[in-house]
């Protein structure tokens, strides 16, 4: 049952045009947790001087990862939309390195899912960014 939902979530993620355009890969999703990775790409640069990825690309990764975590929660009927998402940028991501996001839906009610996430590059001791968000809980 839960495996079935994970499979649906995975297929759904791969069917998201924007996530596909950014080359995101869902590596794990179940029980309100999700992991997504995104390769470094010169087209995603936000600071041409340093080659650091644009915050907007990190936002897209965080939003997708948080949404997947919310959808995969056992209490979620399946659908979701972002209500609000806050991202804190701790440090610039190292150019050339893949970014991995891990999100966790830590509380869910009949109408709202509360999610937090962190993104790291090769050095996972200090995150590149953290996020907290609220998502709607909807039927499919």
């Amino acid at each position, binding site marked *: 049952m839960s495996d079935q939902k994970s499979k649906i979530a995975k297929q759904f993620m791969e069917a998201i045009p924007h996530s596909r355009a950014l080359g995101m890969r869902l590596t794990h999703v179940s029980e309100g947790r999700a992991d997504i990775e995104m390769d470094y790409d010169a087209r995603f640069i936000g600071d041409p001087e340093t080659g650091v990825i644009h915050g907007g690309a990190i936002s897209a990764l965080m939003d*997708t990862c948080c949404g997947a975590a919310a959808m995969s929660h056992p209490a979620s009927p399946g659908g979701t939309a972002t209500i609000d998402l806050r991202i804190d*940028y701790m440090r610039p991501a190292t150019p050339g390195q893949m970014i991995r996001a891990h999100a966790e839906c830590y509380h869910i009610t009949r109408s709202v899912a509360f999610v937090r996430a962190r993104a790291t590059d090769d050095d996972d001791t200090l995150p590149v960014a953290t996020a907290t968000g609220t998502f709607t809980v909807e039927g499919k």
Partner: protein
Amino acid sequence: MARPRPEPVQVIKQRRDAALNALVQGVPYIRFLGVAFDRRGDELTAIMPYDDKLIGNPLLPALHGGATAAFLEITAIIGLSWGMLWEEIESGAFDPEAIVGGALPRLPKTIDFTVDYLRSGLPRDAYARAQVNRSGRRYASVHVEAWQDNRGRPFAQATGHFLMPRRDG
């Protein structure tokens, strides 16, 4: 003292547009999303033309929250940089030929960014404007609003804090 003759309008427009163009075209991610800016005096309106790759929910369909967030963040950063650059261009302290020639000014860095999704983004063009609420030597606070068909019905808004680039070393 005689007032100096104002410059011809075309010279001023060409200089401002060239500076804006260089600022925007220098950032790969802005080009990737296809975001452009419309200038009226010093007021900027960002435009994100609809593209299939911006979709997040193909069933509705609706724009991806990440595309909307990036659009708002781009609008905030360019708006903030433009405000900083504008005074320097107009006072003559800044040489716009330098950015046109490729020497881009350092951009503000995002400290945090909070997006409020008010309604789902429709599969059509989106517009946004930034308002710099505070811009100090080190920190700035910017509010951005994005809309589609109706200016009075924004589909997303955001507030972000930015670290200003260091000036003159």
